[in-house]
């Protein structure tokens, strides 16, 4: 697969406060993103995720380092023509209607009139805002703004899309809608660079991730390489078996009513518990084997960092 984004040894610091004290934000970031993948860029608040994206898109200038998009310098028009960007908490010109807004942005890409109208319609359909095409953006909800932001990011049919916290602050339905659009982009063969700290979503849609802490990349790679598939423990919810009988099988927690939650660490004990339930004429309500999650890995890395 071809490399679409290559970052080498990126450094950036800001002068903050009255005394203009220098604060290092990025300390030698290096990463590469391959064509067609959804790349998750994870990190706690203030780790440097947005600063990295701003450097890539030319909103701020790095002090050191090299950035290439599709083999072109990141600030060249050729690179920018192939990228789309949805910023965190997007705010747009609220005096414009959704279609006027997309029309304005399409002029920045010099899209021809006939093509423009078709494109705007299809994008409004994609983000489910067809009925709000003539509504001013000031009347849009947070979720709607996020979706119109997504539409503007896709106006030029980009091959590489940068999404900065696209799922933040959205309700579950809004999150699902944005997630579905990202999956659709992936299926269309586009590359998505997704910065987020909502780990469940990242785990669901990303192929590869990089974890950034204090301006440094601590870990990066394919999700299945980073997360162990070994079962850590099995959670069994059961009823009809006494506490004494379950002694030594695992950690015991009393649940709602007569239900008991048991955390079984040894695999051979799972079979024993099930036999016990059968002999006591009890009932198993759920049995969930827990493997390591991205959240476990993230928490561990951040704690070490």
């Amino acid at each position: 697969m071809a490399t679409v984004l290559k970052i080498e040894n990126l450094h950036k610091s800001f002068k903050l406060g009255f005394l203009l004290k220098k604060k290092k934000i990025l300390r030698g970031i290096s990463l590469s993103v391959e064509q067609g993948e959804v790349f998750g860029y994870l990190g706690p608040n203030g780790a440097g995720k947005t600063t990295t994206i701003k450097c890539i898109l030319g909103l701020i200038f790095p002090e050191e380092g090299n950035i290439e998009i599709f083999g072109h310098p990141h600030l060249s028009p050729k690179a920018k023509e192939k990228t789309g960007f949805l910023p965190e908490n997007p705010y747009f010109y609220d005096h414009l209607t959704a279609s006027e807004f997309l029309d304005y942005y399409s002029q920045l890409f010099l899209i021809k009139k006939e093509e423009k109208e078709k494109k705007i319609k299809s994008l409004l359909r994609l983000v489910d805002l067809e009925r709000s095409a003539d509504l001013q953006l000031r009347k849009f909800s947070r979720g709607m703004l996020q979706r119109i932001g997504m539409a503007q990011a896709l106006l030029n049919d980009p091959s590489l899309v940068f999404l900065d916290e696209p799922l933040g602050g959205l309700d579950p339905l809004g999150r699902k809608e944005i997630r579905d659009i990202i999956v659709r982009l992936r299926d269309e063969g586009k590359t998505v660079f997704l910065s987020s700290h909502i780990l469940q979503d990242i785990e669901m849609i990303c192929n590869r991730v990089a974890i950034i802490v204090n301006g440094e990349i601590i870990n990066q790679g394919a999700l299945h390489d980073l997360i162990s598939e070994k079962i850590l423990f099995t959670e069994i919810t059961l009823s009809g078996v006494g506490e004494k009988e379950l002694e030594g099988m695992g950690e015991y927690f009393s649940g709602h009513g007569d239900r008991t939650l048991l955390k079984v660490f040894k695999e051979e004990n799972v079979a024993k518990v099930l036999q016990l339930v059968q002999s006591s004429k009890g009932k198993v309500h759920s049995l969930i084997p827990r493997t390591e999650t991205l959240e476990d890995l993230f928490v561990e890395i951040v704690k070490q960092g």
Partner: protein
Amino acid sequence: MKIKAIALNTFKEAIRDRILYLLLFFAAVCIIFSRLLALLTVGDRIKIIKDVGLTSLSLFGALMAILMGTGLVFKEIDKKTIYTIVSKPIHRYQFLLGKFFGLVLTLFIMLLLMSFIFLALVFFHTFTIEWEMFVAILFIFFELCLITSVALLFSCFSTPILSSIFSLAFYLIGHTAWGLETLIKKIPPSFGKTMAQALYHFLPDLENFNFKTEIVQNLDIPSEAFLYSVLYGIFYTLFVLIIAIVIFRKRDFI
């Protein structure tokens, strides 16, 4: 094309600003008030109307340019709308020029409206269309273009309040810098005189765009004076815009 798109969006945004209409209202009040002032004056009443009217156009036009211009770029950065613009295949100078032309278009429309009220008032007194007035208004427009570029320059690195103070200072200094010329003539050759001369050449001279007195008093104006003022306006505006672009090109949008 890209500059045009940004300019039209700036225009659409600017004409929604209530400050603009408030200033337009006060400009209209001042122009109409000149009629009352003329009644109280001994002498040529129409000259008072013309003088007060043209001064109102210049003053309120400048206030519009300063108050709108100083917020132009700052608002885009503050509200982060610039993020999605600069990340598109667009040069930063195109964005800045788009903003400049958008505001110049807004000021042109506003000046047109104020001029209509003023010329209507003059017409009701003289029952003739005084074409010389258009020349004075045209040079007021040149002055407004220069003030817009200055407001835009300050807007690239400062807050709207500070930028407004700086731009207003530019306007006031620009209309009083001619006093330095008199001072230079009066002081003997010295270091002070050299400094005063250097300052005189560095400071803007907005009186170059002021043909009010000559036109109101029906005095002859040599064509070289018009040419000099036009060239002065164009080059000074370009100079200020270039400085603004240089600053804006290097700016981090945090």
